[in-house]
């Protein structure tokens, strides 16, 4: 599904060129659950952003679902974000002025789903994550784990093929973190491809495959035995 070939990412400052990613070669197949680990500043977020079409590599090739996705027109890129890729963030990034319900509904509005259909789709997810009672609350009124659940609900409501999670458990207690990881695992079992970044060895083990980044290079790439 994802094919990265010789991906470089660097920033030019006045005197030097700093490489964040260097010669990354990575293939991710549909249905995989990939954990990305590495020290802070090693380029994990950058890699995820490039995969998620939020950032573009300085050089290299990127095939998504067999199509090159470099230098996309805005319209095509937005289409990918509407139908193919979703994100979860460490800081949840919910819209503070909107209720839980409205937050989850947002992607559907941009996708152009009819209001009646939206209602039932949001209701299903609220039900699934056991947060029906919270639907009229604002994000600040929820615990971190609950906020991240809302974040996941918002991410998957558009039924994406690829879910990208940048340290989704970084702000959570371990029990809440585990709950989130369980949810991701469940989604993966249903067939969703997931790439998640984590610092936590235990949570990394939820992935079927683990890569470790160091100074912009992939140091190791191991498949977990099941």
């Amino acid at each position: 599904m994802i094919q990265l070939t010789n991906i470089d990412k660097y920033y030019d400052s006045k005197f030097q060129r700093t490489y964040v990613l260097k010669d990354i070669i990575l293939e991710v197949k549909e249905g995989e659950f990939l954990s990305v680990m590495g020290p802070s500043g090693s380029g994990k977020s950058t890699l995820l952003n490039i995969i998620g079409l939020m950032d573009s590599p300085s050089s290299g090739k990127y095939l998504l679902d067999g199509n090159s996705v470099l230098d996309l027109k805005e319209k095509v890129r937005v289409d990918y974000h509407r139908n193919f890729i979703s994100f979860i963030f460490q800081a949840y990034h919910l819209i503070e002025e909107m209720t839980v319900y409205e937050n989850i509904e947002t992607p559907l509005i941009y996708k152009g789903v009819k209001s009646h259909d939206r209602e039932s789709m949001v209701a299903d997810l609220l039900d699934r994550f056991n947060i029906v009672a919270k639907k009229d609350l604002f994000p600040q009124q929820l615990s971190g784990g609950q906020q991240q659940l809302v974040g996941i609900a918002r991410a998957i409501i558009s039924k994406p093929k690829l879910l990208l999670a940048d340290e989704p458990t970084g702000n959570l207690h371990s029990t809440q973190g585990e709950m989130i990881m369980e949810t991701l695992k469940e989604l993966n079992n249903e067939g969703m491809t997931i790439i998640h970044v984590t610092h936590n060895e235990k949570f990394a083990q939820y992935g079927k495959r683990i890569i470790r980044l160091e100074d912009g290079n992939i140091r190791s790439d191991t498949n977990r035995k099941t």
Partner: protein
Amino acid sequence: MTIRNFVRKPVTNLINLVGLAVSLALVIILSVYSYSELTTDNYHKNGDRVYLFGDLTKGIYTPAILKEHIDLSVPGVESTVRMASAWEAPTFQVGNNDPITSDLLFADEDFFKLLTYHPVEGNLESALKEPMSVVITTMLSEKLFGSDQAVGKTMKINNDKELTVTAVIEAPKANSCISFSAIASVATRKIVFPNGDEFTEWGWCNYQTFMLLKKGINPDETAKKILALYPEIPPDNSAAKLNPFTKLYFSAFNVYGNSYLHHGDKKKIMILVMVAALVLMIALVNFINIFSSQWLDKIKQTGVMKIIGAKRSTILLNVLSEAFLLFLVALFIAIILVGMINPFIQNYTGIRFNPQFIYSPGFILLSIAIVFVLSILFSIIPALRISSSNAIDNLKKTIEQPVSNSFFGGVLVTTQFIIAIVLLAFTVLVQKQVNFGSSDLGFNQNNIIGIKLTPQLNGKKEVLKKLLQEKPNVERISFTQYYPGKQISHWGTHQDINGVKKQLSFDTFNADATFFGVLGLQLTQGRFYSEDLTTDTKKMVVNETFLRENKMENPIGAKFVMGMGMDAGLSEIIGVVKDFHYKAVNEPIVSLVMQNEPNAFYCLVSLQTTDFKSLHRTIDEIKTASSQLSPSFPVEISFFDQAVENMYKSELEFQRTFSLFAGCAIVIGCMGILAMSLFMCQRRIKEIGIRKVNGATIAEVITLLNKNFVKWVAIAFVIATPIAWYTMHKWLEDFAYKTEISWWIFMVSGMLTLGIALLTVSWQSWKAATRNPVEALRYE
């Protein structure tokens, strides 16, 4: 601390400062101007006992002979003073210097008893006693005599008789409805400008009659006594009263020509004061918006809120003093700005005031005090909001805070839009009215020049005509008493027309046969007179209003007596012209009689349209030729259309003032909206990122950001339309001929406001929407 804060956000702070400074500058200009207008003539010692006799709405011209009768038989009057300008500005010549054209006022010798002036040289009490004496202003004295002492020196008037300077006065410090450069007695006028039966006939109304009443005398009863003096009360003056001099400036009386008497327009001043208030309001709204946004951000950033609970008063003081400092800096910039733009403002808008006034310590202290109050008043709301503990608690958990904040901001921005729409609509209307006023006057005004006939030219009219005819491009030449903006005689007589007794009241001037062709006037009945004066004497052409007012159905051939005394004789109406606006268009057209008498003040020359260069060469040649015929008097040549434009000078200046102020208001408002959108985008940067990640396009994000502004403009439009309509309606009330308040004025203003707002806001929205969401969403 304040300076550091300023530097941290230079754009918004600059917007705040510049907006405040410019609006304060406008407020200073207008308040000083309004003050000087509103205190007009309040400095005369006896001012409260001085009155003008006449009917302000119909006419204030009275016969000279009236004074003699008042002096004789109205006991309550301490002193009566007639005043009249010289019909045409005369020339003064000292020795063999170049003659200087100057205005000249004639008044009776008690003039300085009624009105207070300060002499630099000479004694005002006796200055006008002797005939052929003259009192001049310091300004004229400098022109004529340089730095020499003027009293005792003589000067030649119109290259003829000699006047002796008996006093020099300084220009009054405050505004007055009376202004002159030189003043001589009425007795002098009798000698230098003898004018028919001006002093013996009740029908010759060339003067204004002012009087000083004794203390405690009732003006209304005195007016009745004066009216009783008339052998026959003229129609114009049947409701004549004694009008208090101190209120004269803001009365709408009519004077003709280069009069010594001016009036102001209270409504205009009110409107300008309102506009200044609106400009200030827009700047203050900017101030509140920018100021409170900044403080909210700052508090969030620095975590000051922890200490607020304990030391709320410190924060309050901090906020207030920063506001005051900003206002103070703005005030000083404004004062410097006023000094810089004052000459431009005076030229462009005709707003005149004494610029020294703004540097006086009294004024500066007062304005600092006002600015202090303003800054406290307008920062106390944000200051309280900031320091109130509720808002602070909510800063971290920002549930309702952004909502209330955007609502508050919304109300303020809507207010700005309302002001913008009203001002724009009004600007369009003023423009429309001025265009309406000067567009269709009913006569041709292009490619005509006017040569003012000096006494020497007047004697050589036929020679002048011959000379002009030889010049290229010259089409027609006419001699007339009419010139746009110059004095027009007004007559009131009782007449017997075809056996019916009629009371006639009309404007009248002399015009020759070519006059009608030069101005392109349209005949509706009868004929114009022929060029041959020998057969066509004592003929008259009247306008349509003359027929209407005097209910004449068959005017052609009607005869009545024109002229007085020796000249009097029956004249015959031979033609009727379509009404045309020979006076300013906001004055209603009245009855007009044109006679083919030879006496003229101007020579009109119509020129064929050719290229600009050759036109100017012709004008130069005309100037040289006529100057040769008039060696002792400078010849004035002017463009007819410019003279017409001068008749609308006050409207034109009002239009300019208004557009200028409205323009400033809108620019300041725009800057405020820019700052608002800047804040709004900054505050929503994360939200925008989230939305984009969730599939929003750039267009959708921009729409989201602009939506509020569109909503506010829409609300503002609904509120502004009736306000604008009402003020327009009020303003137009004063015009005899008014333009329509068309619906498109509002549409244009609304659309323009929307356009300007969207353009301003979209700049920021675009920047925010095209940003890479990665930056906004990076976890810090």
